[in-house]
């Protein structure tokens, strides 16, 4: 599988750094930003990330607002929402707004990695059928 570019958007810097380190060890190309504005700035630049891991609660913007902005910019970028404040409706709301999936913190790394791979495959299929 090609190197998957993953952008981690989370204001919990230790979490983002630990996740980036784990992903890098597995051969991914991770990047981290700590707020929604920085995430959108990164998305403006090429090359785009393949998958965005997006925290729901951030100080400057809601994860949902960032999700909508990312999808407006490039609908083929897949977004996986992350939250430590899980309620059932968040998952449904995320998917309704275009997220690929939703995952609860603490994050089981294996489960997250599976979702990243699935999201990347979906993005690749989108490219091939476009």
């Amino acid at each position, binding site marked *: 599988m090609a190197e998957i570019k993953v952008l981690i958007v989370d204001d*919990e810097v*230790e*979490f983002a750094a*630990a*996740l980036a*380190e*784990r992903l890098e060890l597995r051969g991914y190309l991770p990047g981290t930003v700590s707020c929604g504005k920085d995430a959108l700035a990164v998305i403006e630049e090429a090359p785009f990330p393949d998958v965005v891991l997006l925290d729901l609660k951030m100080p400057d913007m809601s994860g949902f607002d960032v999700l909508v902005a990312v999808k407006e910019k490039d609908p083929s970028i897949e977004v996986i929402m992350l939250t*430590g404040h899980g309620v059932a409706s968040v998952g449904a709301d995320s998917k309704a707004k275009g997220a690929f999936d939703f995952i609860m*913190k*603490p*994050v*089981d*790394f*294996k489960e997250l990695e599976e979702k990243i791979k699935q999201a990347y495959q979906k993005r690749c299929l989108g490219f091939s059928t476009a």
Partner: protein
Amino acid sequence: MKILITIRENNVAPRFDLTSEVLIALCENQEILGTPRTMLMNRPSAEDLCALIIKEGISTVICGGIEESHLKYLSWKKIQVVDSVIGPYSEALNAANAGFLKAGTILPGAKKRVLEK
């Protein structure tokens, strides 16, 4: 036996309250069942970590330094805590699985690293 090890990079995390990653392994008859899971905490927090330990039904916690209040809480919940362990978490897991890991153990991998420096 369900073991949780607080980790940092390849080692047992030096402080329980500053841990952002844990390894969870299931052991039976001195065998590690399946592949251990890595969990990433939302933020370093001893309280969140204790909650995860209870939720996961952990029987043994292996960690570095831990505050007495959290040690007492986990012991009260009948969870065995092997603290002040120093060294690679893979060695800690194997030693715990073999039944000879004790509080305060400095694992061979840690000693080797010190000697290399």
